[in-house]
């Protein structure tokens, strides 16, 4: 089922959670809403679910206006960050809750309900755990029960609110791979809220980057990573160096940087080329401050001589070994790929709250 949010605005007192947001999610897509806390992503999800009502704007399911449809009739599956399992019910009762609450005329037989619960238990790989209580499960198991419970009612849409936020890194990685696989099997339209860019880039068909109650950019993971529309997206998705425009002296970067003195150049650490000697083409002179080759790539901290700015660089280990740069030595850099933004825009996007 396709979901469309049209011109949604939502305020909580003086705080604006969503400011005229438009979003269209196609049927069968897995879309993540990515942004720092307070960016409005969870509010948007809760409005789609019907747990909150927009101050203005409308929500459409399959092009039908669902803005005033009560929660119970929306047929959405929702997974909460802290599981929200019914603590006094066994896993099986939790999973079958939605079926057992159906009006008598639509309710499947006891036998059918038990069968469906068993089916879902095996889908989430928790066979034989039906008799346990939520308190007897690990965090990852609880979240899988929550997912099974949401899927039991055959929802038209699956909404996940930071589903792995409360889990440790290892479980989180396993679960998100598994959610992606599950989505590929079931093809259910899925909206996924997260503040973890790695998570969003790894599992989504499209990523919606949000900041300050607005959508900054919508695109495939590769689009938002390679062609960030705004300085905020640039900073939020992965590491980036922001270098002042108007560099003194001969500049090795695209001409536009040179021309605009009030702009910032954004360059990713792996888009910097490092040379031992200037090779004729325009380069920037720098001093090596620190090197670290532990890890899949080598990391260098270089201080630009012209502006005194620190540049983080990532090099393939082979290239690093070849250069053999030591702290204190001189180096010359070229930017393979750079984008400039007016300094005013860039300053607005500084320090996203939890870009980690």
């Amino acid at each position, binding site marked *: 089922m396709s979901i469309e949010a049209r011109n949604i605005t939502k305020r909580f007192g003086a705080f604006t959670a969503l400011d005229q947001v438009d979003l269209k999610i196609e049927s069968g897509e897995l879309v993540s809403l990515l942004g720092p806390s307070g960016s409005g992503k969870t509010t948007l999800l809760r409005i789609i*679910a*019907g*747990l909150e009502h927009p101050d203005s704007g409308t929500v459409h399911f399959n092009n039908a206006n669902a803005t005033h449809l009560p*929660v*119970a*009739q*929306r*047929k*959405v*599956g*929702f997974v*909460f960050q*802290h*599981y*929200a*399992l*019914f*603590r*006094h*019910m066994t896993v099986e009762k939790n999973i079958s*809750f*939605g079926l057992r*609450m*159906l009006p008598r005329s639509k309710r499947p037989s006891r036998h059918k309900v038990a069968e469906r619960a068993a089916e879902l238990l095996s889908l989430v790989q928790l066979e034989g755990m039906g008799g346990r*209580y*939520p*308190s*007897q499960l690990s965090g990852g198991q*609880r979240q899988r029960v929550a997912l099974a*419970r*949401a899927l*039991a*009612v055959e929802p038209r849409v699956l909404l996940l609110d930071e589903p792995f936020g409360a889990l440790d890194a290892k479980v989180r990685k396993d679960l998100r791979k598994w959610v992606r696989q599950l989505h590929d099997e079931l093809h259910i339209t899925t909206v996924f809220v997260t503040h973890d860019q790695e998570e969003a880039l790894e599992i989504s068909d499209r990523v919606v980057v949000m900041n300050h109650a607005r959508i900054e950019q919508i695109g495939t993971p590769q689009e938002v990573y390679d062609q960030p529309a705004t300085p905020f997206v640039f900073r939020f998705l992965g590491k980036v160096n922001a270098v002042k425009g108007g560099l003194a002296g001969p500049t090795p970067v695209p001409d536009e940087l040179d021309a605009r003195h009030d702009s910032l150049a954004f360059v990713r650490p792996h888009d910097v080329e490092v040379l031992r000697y200037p090779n004729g083409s325009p380069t920037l002179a720098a001093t090596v401050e620190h090197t670290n080759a532990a890890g899949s790539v080598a990391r260098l901290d270089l201080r630009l001589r012209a502006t005194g700015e620190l540049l983080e660089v990532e090099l393939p280990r082979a290239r690093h070994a070849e250069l053999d740069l030591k702290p204190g030595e001189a180096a010359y850099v070229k930017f393979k790929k750079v984008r400039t933004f007016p300094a005013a825009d860039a300053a607005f996007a500084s320090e996203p709250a939890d870009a980690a």
Partner: protein
Amino acid sequence: MAGIATTLIRTRLVAANRPLTGDPAWIRWLVMSVGITFLVVTLFIPLVAVFTEALRHGLAAYFASFTDPDALSAIRLTLFTAAISVPLNLVFGVAAAWAIAKFQFPGKSLLISLIDLPFAISPVVAGLIYVLMFGAQGWFGPWLHAHHIKIIFAVPGIVLATIFVTFPFVARELIPLMESQGDTEECAALILGATGWQTFWYVTLPNIRWGLLYGVILCNARAMGEFGAVSVVSGHIRGLTNTMPLQVEILYNDYNFVAAFAVATLLALLALVTLVLKRLVEWHASRQEDSTQGALS
């Protein structure tokens, strides 16, 4: 490292054998005996006295006290009053706690203060409020008289006064519990298609059952034992408007000590049963609390 750990453990073992504060033994004994003496004098001796006085002339005289029609009527009235006021306060308490814990609305803090009012106010004043409203000289007195409705010096007044006094027990017990539980389970139930009533019945109620039972037990104990407010509105008509606590007072004033203490033993037994039940519920609730915390961690 291992050396440090061993030293730590040894220090702890030594510490466990010594009192934490390091006060001399005689001070500890003094503090403890003061506490125990106080308990014996104010609680234990009176309790024993109630039973010894009641049984002073033997079991026959003790049981004979309960065959007195006035005593029987007092017992019936007390049970009747509790049977009305406890369920009403249960429903009210759950509704109020639900509203306060799960919703935001203007006047919420005022409602919380109002729920506490019966605790803050003297029961005698509570009784007087009803006399002022429904008594012969009260606001609604003439109208009630004209329609032959009797509230003051009759059973309805006693029930009203009891409801007022026992008003906060259930709500007070539930509000913090429901607030700590939050509303995500309810949200989850609604999203899964449950109606509001199903959500309450299958999700909210099971989560608060022990707190609810605890509140009901306390509410019941107070409803049966209330003296002040009921005394003001009762009129002390023997065999008609005397509850058990009032009956004890009347018998005592009549120098009918055995009967007075016999009825008092019933109230004392009620208190003991309440304590045992309360303890049981607390035990269950703490077990549930453990599993809840497990679910959150």
